[in-house]
């Protein structure tokens, strides 16, 4: 965190000054480790084994917060008889379809005596609407399996950004936690073999260090104390990335650290407003506010969409209101009840359209245009060669950035030009480079990891031709609308029926022509007013008055809101995100600095900071509480609960929607109001995390010897991205070391914002790899000499930094060396070097389609890499030595 988020790390330093213990678990000793009370080096790719070991300790030694666990988690919930664990099935869960590499979640469902009576929809497997997470069953017989897989391929794991997946709202329970099929007992059995010895063998962590970690965690959790778990995006970049986070969530929930001050799981984002870019998404599978993007199967019209995506209980019951308000924000008066509020103007998903599938589609000729807005995939994405190969097949490519990044110039100076794989004169892609304005040159908001929006005002006009993204999107839309209008012979923004010469074209163009595209323009650059966009995101009621809460949204078309969870950010017509009341002038929660969704709450699920009766678990950790005299929730923060719902409230039989939320349902957005130790739905790869080795690993999976990898990981296939043998497969010894990529404080991601700046470039002026003295001795690497690092995809060269900060470990009785690779470099800019991500493959997490770049198996040799076609010869020789075929690494 000190390394990649030094500004945020000031709060860790402040906590330390107040007595907090800081533990850092990381393969390398970083600037964070230097400040920590304890640094625990770990083998990259083994975190689930490590955290699973702590969970096992917490369960067997009864270190969990029992009152909290009983009240607020699904520990007592009984799971269906159909469920079978990895312990029973050799490392996989029940429901695995090996042919299609998917799980049928139906086998993980809650047991409910009243099946059918209160079943959800968003939540209900088998609702016939292809619903949430693609677990919906088909309604049309034999094509059902295919459809289910296609819907599932669209993932929707990310749709849980503001509430969990669906489950039965009132399943059978056993409050004694003794039932063999209750979640608590299942969890205990599942993690029973995650022992300190196993942790040592798999992670390379000594029992002594392991003990110090779990003792610090457990002794600092409970009624009086809380522990926070902080991770950075690298934690997600594994074929089991989402399950990493799940393991952390299970541990934090068992210890009672969720929804409480000083607790939680804090996801540090890759750069500013990444939280914002999922709230108002740049993801293919989401609409604003985590509304799932409609799928071609299952979301035929607004009714089926609202039915499939809503839950019976809680605030997700009102999906229709959120969706209709979104459609009204986008299409204004054109959206009417008669035309389903323009629901059919929305495109439909047909499968997964993530980054890597898109690259394959480019290569296949199915995707002909590409916008890169502040993104440099030629350096930042896995397997840069595949990225460039994809771009070389496009008709057009638009790059908006500060500088001529590698993704804008690969066609004349990329690595494939050097190797002879590409010739500039053969490339048909028309490349447009448009200079972008920096954040100081435009107004707008950042949404940080706390879901807090902070407004920034334009300080100076952008120089030269540089323009903001808002300017670009607005004026591009304006010009397209003008051109389409001329084609159709109608007026943009008018909802009048087609009157032009090409009525069919007009029909096709209406979704664009009917958009509300009327933001005020300011200044000589005609910059759209960013506050006007914020006002639309917030939304308004039937009188045009800004709404202050999403509870005001209606499904009859009388309200509009561009993102339901952001309702209130423009309450009273005031930009709440621009508030900057100093901390010293308000309470410690500081609700008057910026604005956080939902409803300006700063700690999510903070009902859990009070006991079931509504009293804080302890004075020291008080955050919100029930005030019986006032008849409402009070506290330092704004309660994440229905303001006047007493702890004693129990929903009457047959209650629906918000009325069905019990006074103790602290995890208010969950179908059953509980934090999930076991996820009966919502995850593509299992209801509980299990340790699987990375796609390419030098060691065998010790916990599940028959199941080396995540069985449902996505292994995209193309000759340009072959996989290596792993574990004890023959040929894996050719790649004996673990490489992990990361960032340095001095540079920013793929370098577009730092490698062109002299003041940053001089601080880290060259690409280097970090190796231990032991590895240096083993391979003859010299400090500040050159090394070539080789995978099945590519070979890169780097200067060698020999340092104790990259310790070698003992794993399964053998010395294991790790290689650290900062991934900022490319061929352009003031400081240049090979890109680490050239080495990476296309095996992805099945929930969110993220690449695995934090744990790769590689070889390293002293000296510089070959130039020109000789580089390809080197890679080919490794393929031969390792016996790599098209099938290598693709088994379930």
């Amino acid at each position, binding site marked *: 965190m000190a390394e990649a988020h030094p500004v945020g*790390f000031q709060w860790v330093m402040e906590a330390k000054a107040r007595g907090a213990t800081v533990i850092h678990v990381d393969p390398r*000793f970083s600037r964070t480790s230097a400040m920590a009370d304890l640094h625990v080096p770990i083998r990259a790719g083994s975190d689930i084994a490590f955290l699973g070991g702590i969970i096992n300790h917490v369960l067997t030694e009864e270190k969990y917060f029992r009152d909290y666990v009983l009240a607020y988690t699904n520990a007592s919930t009984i799971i269906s008889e159909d469920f079978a664990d990895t312990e029973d099935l050799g490392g996989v869960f029940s429901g695995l379809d090996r042919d299609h590499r998917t799980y049928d979640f139906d086998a993980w469902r809650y047991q409910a005596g009243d099946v059918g009576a209160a079943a959800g929809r968003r939540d209900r497997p088998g609702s016939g609407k292809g619903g949430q997470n693609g677990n919906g069953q088909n309604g049309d017989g034999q094509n059902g399996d295919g459809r289910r897989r296609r819907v599932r391929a669209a993932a929707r794991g990310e749709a849980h950004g503001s509430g969990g997946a669906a489950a039965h709202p009132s399943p059978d329970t056993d409050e004694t936690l003794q039932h063999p099929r209750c979640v608590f007992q299942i969890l205990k059995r599942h993690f029973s073999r995650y022992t300190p010895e196993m942790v040592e063998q798999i992670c390379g962590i000594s029992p002594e260090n392991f003990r110090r970690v779990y003792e610090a965690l457990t*002794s600092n959790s409970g009624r009086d104390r809380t522990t926070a778990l902080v991770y950075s995006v690298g934690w997600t970049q594994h074929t089991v990335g989402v399950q990493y986070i799940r393991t952390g969530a299970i541990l934090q929930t068992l210890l009672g650290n969720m929804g409480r001050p000083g607790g939680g799981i804090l996801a540090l984002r890759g750069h500013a407003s990444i939280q914002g870019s999922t709230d108002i998404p740049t993801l293919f599978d989401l609409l604003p506010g985590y509304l799932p993007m409609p799928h071609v199967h299952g979301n035929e019209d607004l009714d089926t969409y609202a039915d499939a995506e809503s839950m019976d209980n809680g605030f997700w019951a009102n999906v229709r209101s959120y969706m209709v308000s979104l459609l009204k924000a986008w299409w204004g008066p054109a959206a009417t009840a008669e035309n389903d509020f323009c629901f059919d103007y929305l495109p439909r998903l047909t499968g997964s359209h993530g980054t890597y599938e898109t690259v394959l589609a480019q290569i296949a000729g199915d995707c002909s245009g590409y916008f890169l807005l502040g993104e440099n995939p030629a350096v930042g994405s896995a397997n840069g060669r595949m990225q460039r190969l994809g771009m070389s097949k496009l008709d057009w490519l638009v790059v908006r950035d500060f500088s001529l990044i590698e993704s804008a110039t690969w066609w004349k100076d990329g690595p494939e030009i050097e190797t002879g794989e590409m010739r500039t004169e053969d490339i048909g892609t028309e490349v447009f480079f448009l200079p972008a304005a920096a954040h100081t040159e435009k107004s707008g908001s950042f949404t940080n990891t706390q879901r807090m929006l902070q407004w920034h005002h334009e300080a100076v006009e952008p120089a030269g031709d540089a323009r903001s993204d808002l300017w670009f999107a607005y004026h591009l839309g304006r010009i397209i609308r003008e051109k389409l209008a001329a084609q159709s012979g109608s007026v943009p923004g008018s909802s009048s029926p087609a009157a032009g010469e090409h009525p069919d074209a007009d029909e096709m163009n209406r979704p664009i022509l009917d958009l509300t595209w009327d933001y005020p323009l300011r200044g000589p650059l005609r910059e759209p007013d960013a506050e006007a966009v914020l006002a639309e995101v917030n939304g308004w009621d039937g009188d045009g008055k800004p709404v202050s809460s999403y509870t005001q949204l209606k499904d009859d078309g009388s309200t509009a809101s561009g993102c339901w969870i952001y309702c209130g950010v423009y309450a009273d017509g005031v930009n709440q995100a621009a508030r900057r009341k100093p901390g010293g002038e308000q309470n410690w929660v500081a609700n008057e600095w910026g604005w956080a969704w939902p409803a300006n709450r700063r700690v999510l699920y903070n009902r859990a900071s009070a006991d079931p009766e509504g009293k804080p678990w302890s004075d020291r950790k008080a955050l919100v509480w029930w005030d019986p005299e006032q008849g409402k929730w009070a506290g330092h923060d704004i309660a994440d609960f229905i303001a006047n719902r007493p702890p004693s409230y129990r929903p009457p039989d047959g209650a629906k929607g918000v009325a069905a939320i019990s006074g103790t349902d602290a995890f208010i957005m969950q179908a059953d109001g509980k934090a999930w130790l076991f996820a009966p739905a919502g995850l593509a790869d299992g209801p509980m995390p299990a340790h699987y080795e990375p796609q390419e690993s030098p060691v065998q999976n010790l916990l599940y010897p028959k199941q080396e990898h995540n069985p449902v990981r996505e292994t995209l296939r193309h000759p340009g991205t072959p996989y290596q043998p792993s574990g004890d497969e023959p040929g894996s010894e050719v790649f004996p070391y673990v490489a992990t990529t990361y960032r340095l404080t001095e540079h920013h991601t793929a370098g577009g914002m730092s490698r062109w700046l002299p003041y940053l470039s*001089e601080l880290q002026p060259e690409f280097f790899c970090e190796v231990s003295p032991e590895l240096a001795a083993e391979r003859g690497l010299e400090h500040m000499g050159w090394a070539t690092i080789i995978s099945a995809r590519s070979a890169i060269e780097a200067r060698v930094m020999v340092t104790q900060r990259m310790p070698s*470990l003992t794993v399964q009785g053998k010395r294991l060396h790790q290689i650290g690779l900062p991934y900022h470099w490319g061929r352009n800019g003031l400081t240049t070097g090979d890109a680490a991500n050239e080495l990476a493959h296309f095996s992805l997490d099945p929930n969110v389609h993220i690449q695995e770049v934090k744990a790769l198996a590689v070889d390293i040799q002293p000296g510089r890499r070959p130039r020109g076609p000789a580089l390809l010869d080197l890679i080919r020789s490794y393929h031969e030595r390792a016996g790599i075929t098209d099938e290598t690494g693709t088994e379930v």
Partner: protein
Amino acid sequence: MSSTERPGLTGGADPAERAGWGEHPPRMGFFTDTSVCIGCKACEVACKEWNTVPEDGLELTGMSFDNTIGLSASTWRHVAFIEQQAPVGVPALPAVPGQAAGIRGGLSGPAVPGPDGVDGAMRWLMSSDVCKHCTEAGCLDVCPTGALMRTEFGTVVVQDDVCNGCGYCVPACPFGVIGRRADDGGAHKCTLCYDRLGVGMEPACAKACPTDSIQFGPLDELRERARVRVNDLVEAGHPEAQLYLEGADNGIGGAGAFFLLLDEPEVYGLPPDPVVPTRSLPRMWKHAGLAAAGVGAMVLTAFLGSRTDVR
């Protein structure tokens, strides 16, 4: 005898007053607490941005993460990185003592080397160096043009439009802080952001420092704060924590920028016992004056004598 009582050429308890400032603000300075430095180098970048100091070379040094190497005409803040095995028995970096004894029980023992002899025993020191704004400033003493001046804040600043680039100041600095830039030939160094101080703002480096490792303020207050902090660290089991240049009892008569270090100054590349080279000048001049007077007297005596002889 304390140096404050022996002002040298330009020093004294109140260098601004000695420089001729009448009513003037208190002496301002930096306290750099290296125990909370996270090595982010924001100070280096903020300094260069504010003062438009040019890039100083794109060279990978291999000296841990230090690619700046040292202070120079074009580097006014420099973060040193020192990788070392922690001294035996020293716990990992400190918190304020007493506040968390309960939970730290499992961790506050001696650092136990892990199975690989590395984890728990590694230490990475980071420290942001800067011009010391000495009470007795060698650069100021030797400057023949008056380009180097003592400000009303007690700091030492080069006036670019007066500097003739003679370079006398460069060897006069016991820390190697000041240097000449090849392109303009002038001498350059930290100004303690004189322009910012003038309008009541703190220097750019201190403003940018996320962890308050660089603290700016009236020197008296900073010294007080530093003594409390070092005592806390020593009590928390860090006997090696020490203040560097905090007092006036050193060869530069005290510094406007001082440091809390977790090891000996040499480890950070700082001179353990810096002495301003002009320190002996008053004494030398006194001796030279005496000698000259003696010679004069001898000559006079000789003449008087010869006159006697003549007579």
